[in-house]
C-alpha cells in the first residue's frame, strides 16, 4: 500500500540541487528544480548504480556523476543514445509551509 511521508522542507534543498534520503530502505534522490518543483527518483543510475543525487541538474534532467548518463526527472527515462529507466516517486509540496511529501 502506498504511504505518504513528510521528508523535509523546500529550503533544505538548494535550487538546481539534490538531497538524498532513505525511505523504507529505498535510497531516494530529491531534486529541487528551478521552477520550484520537487521530484523524486530512486538514487541509482541504471548504468553503473551512480548516485543521481550527486549529479548536475539541468532543467528537468540530471546527469549521472559517473558516466554522464542523462535522465529525465519527470519520467525517469534515460535519454538517448543510452537506454533504461529509473523508478520515480510521486511528490507534493505544501506551498505555504514548504513541507515536502513523497509517496512510496
Amino acid at each position, binding site marked *: 500500500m502506498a504511504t*505518504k511521508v*513528510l521528508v523535509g522542507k523546500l529550503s533544505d534543498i538548494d535550487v538546481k540541487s539534490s538531497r538524498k*534520503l532513505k525511505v523504507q530502505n529505498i535510497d531516494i534522490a530529491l531534486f529541487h528544480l528551478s521552477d520550484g518543483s520537487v521530484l523524486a527518483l530512486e538514487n541509482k543510475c541504471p548504468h553503473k548504480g*551512480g*548516485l543521481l543525487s550527486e549529479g*548536475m541538474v539541468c532543467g528537468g534532467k540530471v546527469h549521472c556523476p559517473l558516466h554522464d548518463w*542523462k535522465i529525465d526527472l519527470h519520467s525517469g527515462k534515460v535519454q538517448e543514445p543510452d537506454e533504461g529507466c529509473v523508478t520515480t516517486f510521486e511528490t507534493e509540496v505544501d506551498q505555504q509551509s514548504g513541507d515536502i*511529501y513523497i509517496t512510496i
Partner: protein
Amino acid sequence: MGEKEKLILIGNGMAGVRTIEHLLKLAPDKYEITIIGEEPHPNYNRIMLSSVLAGGANMQDIIVNDWDWYKDNGIQLVTGQKVTKLDTKLCTVTTHTGAQYQYDRVILATGSNPFMLPIPGADKEGVIAFRDIRDCETMMETSKTYKKAAVIGGGLLGLEAARGLLHLGMEATVIHINDYLMERQLDEPAARMLQRELESQGMKFLLNKQSASITGRGRVKALQFADGSELKTDLIVMAVGIRPNTELAKSSGIEVNRGVVVNDYMETSVANVYAVGECAEHRGIAYGLVAPLYEQGAVLAKRLAGVETAGYAGSVTSTKLKVSGVDVFSAGNFTETASTKALRIQDDLGGTYKKIVIENGKLVGAVLFGDTTDGTELFSLIKKGENVEGREKELLLGISLDQLGGGNPLAKYEAMPDDEIVCGCNGVSKATIVEAIQTKDCNSVASIKACTKASGSCGGCKPIVEGLLKVYAGDAAAEPVKEGICGCTTLTRDEIVAEIQRMRLLTVKEVMNVLGWNEPEGCSKCRPSLNYYIGMLFPEEYVDEKESRITNERFHANIQKDGTFSVVPRVYGGVTTPSDLKKIAEVAEKFEVPMVKFTGGQRLDLLGVKKEDLPKIWEELDMPSGHAYGKTLRTVKTCVGSTFCRFGTQDSISMGIRMEKAFERLNTPAKVKLAVSGCPRNCAEATIKDLGVVAIDGGWEIHIAGNGGVKVRATDLLCVVKTEDEVMEWSSAFLQLYREHAVWNERTSQWIERVGLDFIKKALENKEDRLALKQRIEKTLSLTNDPWKEIIENKELRKNFEQLTGLEPATK
C-alpha cells in the same frame, strides 16, 4: 494470415543475434523466435573482452543486447543450455536438459571453440583459453595471487590476452611458434616494430618456440619446450587459434568441412537449416572477424524475410589492432608473390611503416603500422578492385586519395552498398547512418555518433562517416556544419568568451538567455564551461555558481564508483611532518577510512569516505584542501634537490613549495600538474607535466605542456632563466595565458597542439606582457579561499553533505 513460422537460433552470440536484429527490422511479425545459448549471459561483444581485462570496460559495457531486448522483441531466450541434438527430419532441437523445441527453420550460429594444444599437462589447473567471460574472470582471479603468466600464441588474440594480463599486474610472456608475431595480419618488418613497441611496454617474447608439455602438480608450474628449455609460470593462456564449432551439425548429417558448409545464401546442405558466423564455411573460408559475420548476417536476414538479395560473395578482411597506443592495420593479400609488386616506406624514427601490394594494376593488400589513418581508404580501394595503375606512389605517400577516384570524390560513398558495415566496432551499417542523417536530423559526426554509436569506439571509421554526411545531409552539410561547444549552442568557445566579455554577462543563466541557448538550463558540458569562463574574465565580480560545477568540484572531493568520496589534504611539495602524518593517521582510524593510499603526486589519499563524514574529516584534519578533485592546480611534485641529494644543483623542494603556495586553489580549464627537479636527471619527471621546472647548473629550464596520462606528451622547452623569481614570473604568465585561451576541459598538452608553441612563446616574449599576465593571475589568486574551511563554517553549504532526516509518516 496463418500462424507464425517457428525460427530457432542455436547460439546466442554476435553473428546470430545480429541476424535476428536485422530480420526483426525487415519482417517483424513473420517468425516466432527462440534463441538458445550456452553461456549464462545475454549477447555480448566478444571483441571487447580484452577491454574488460584492460580495465577500460566492465561486463555491463560489453552487453550488446540486454535481457529487456529479448523481452521487448518477444523472443524466447533460453540460456545456460547446450543443444545436443538437431533432428532435421522431425525438425526438432533438443538441449542437454532434455527440453525439446519444434522449428520450421533453424539457424546454426554455434561460433567456434578455442583450439587447445593437445600437449601433456594441458588439463592442469591454470591452463585456460581466451574466449569468454569465464576465461576473463579466471585471469582476473589468478592475477590476485599469482605473478607469472605465459600466453601461447603470438597472434591477435594472444597479444590482446597478454596485454590484458600486463594490465592486471602480471608478468606476461608470449610464446610464438614462428619467428615473428601476427604473421596472418602483418609482414615481418611491421611485426618487428610491433614487438619492439610491446617490449617497451613490458611484454616478453619467446619466438621460434614449440611448446611440448606442461608440468606441475595439480596446478601448472612450468611450460617446457621442444628444445629442452622451460619457462616457469603460474598461468598458461592458449591462444593458438579457433576452430569452427561443428559438432552439432556433423552429428545431424549436415555437410561439414572445416566449418558448416554454406552456399551464398547461408543455406547448409539440409533444407531449412542455415549457418552463419564463425561456425560457417563459405567458399572454403571460415571467418573469425566481425565485419564478415555481419555481412553474412545481413544476407541471411534478407533471405529469411523473403526479401530479394544478392548472395554473399565472401569478404576481404581488414584488421585494426590497437593496444596502448600501437596502431596496426592490414587488409587483403599483403604477402608478396611472384605476380605482386610491393611499395613500402619505413620510418624507424617516427615508428611508422606502410606497405601496399599491387597485382595486375590493382591494389590487393596493405599493411600499416604506427599511423593507420589511410587504412579505411586503402581498404575500400582494395574491396572495389579498381585499377590504380600510375597512381601507386600517390597511394603509398597517401596524397590526394580523394582525387584518385577521378571526378567526384564522394562517388565512392554513394556506391557503397547499404548493408556494408561502416563501424566495425559497433556493427553500424551504411543504411543505419544514412537513415540517421535523413530521418533523425543528424547533421554532424557527433550527432551521428550519439544516435547510432558509429565512430564511437576506435574512431577509425570517422572519415567514412564524414563522407556519408557530405553525400546524404544535402543542404544541411553543403556548408561545413558548425559545431558549438555542446549540443545546446552553435557558438564556439572563442565566440562565447568574446560575447561574455563584450556584454559583461555575469551569470551562467544570462549567457544562455542572451546567446540563445536551445536548452534553457544547458547541459553538464556547457554549464561548467560557462561558469569557468565568466570567473576567468571577471574574477572580482563573478559569484561562483556551485550548481554549475562538476560533482567533484561541488563536493570538494573525488566521487568514487560506489558513491563514496576521497580526501587528499595539501602536502606542499610532497614534504610533510611527523605531526601531520600522525593527524592523518588518527583521522583515518577514527573514521574507519577503508583505504589510505599514497597518490602519484606525493601525498596521501583517504579513500572510501562517506559523504556525510567529509566536513567532519576536514574539520579534524585542519589542513588545506589538496584540490585533488578539480580543474585546478593539483600537485607540485619535487625531487630532493640540493638539500640532501648529492647530484642536486638547486633547491627544488623550496622552489616547488613556493610554486604550490602561490598557485594553489587556482581555477584552470583542466587540471594542472607541476613538478620541479633539482638536476637534469629529472627525478620529479618534470618533462611530462603541464609545467615542469628542471634545475641546471646556475639556472632553471622551464618546460611546458607535457602530459603523462591518456596520451603521453613530452614537454616543450619554453625558456631558461637564472633566478627563482624569474621562474615565478614565467610560470605565472604561462598559467594565466593558458587560463585565458584554452577551451574548458582542454589540458595544456592539447592546447599547445592546437595553438602551437610559437603562439605561446610570442605571447610571453615581452616582459611587459608577462608582468600583465602575472598581475592578472595574482588578482585571481588573491580572491580564493580554502573550500574545506568555507564549508565547515557555513551551515547552508554544510547541509548538502547530510542525508535528509526528519521522516514523518503523514496521512497513510
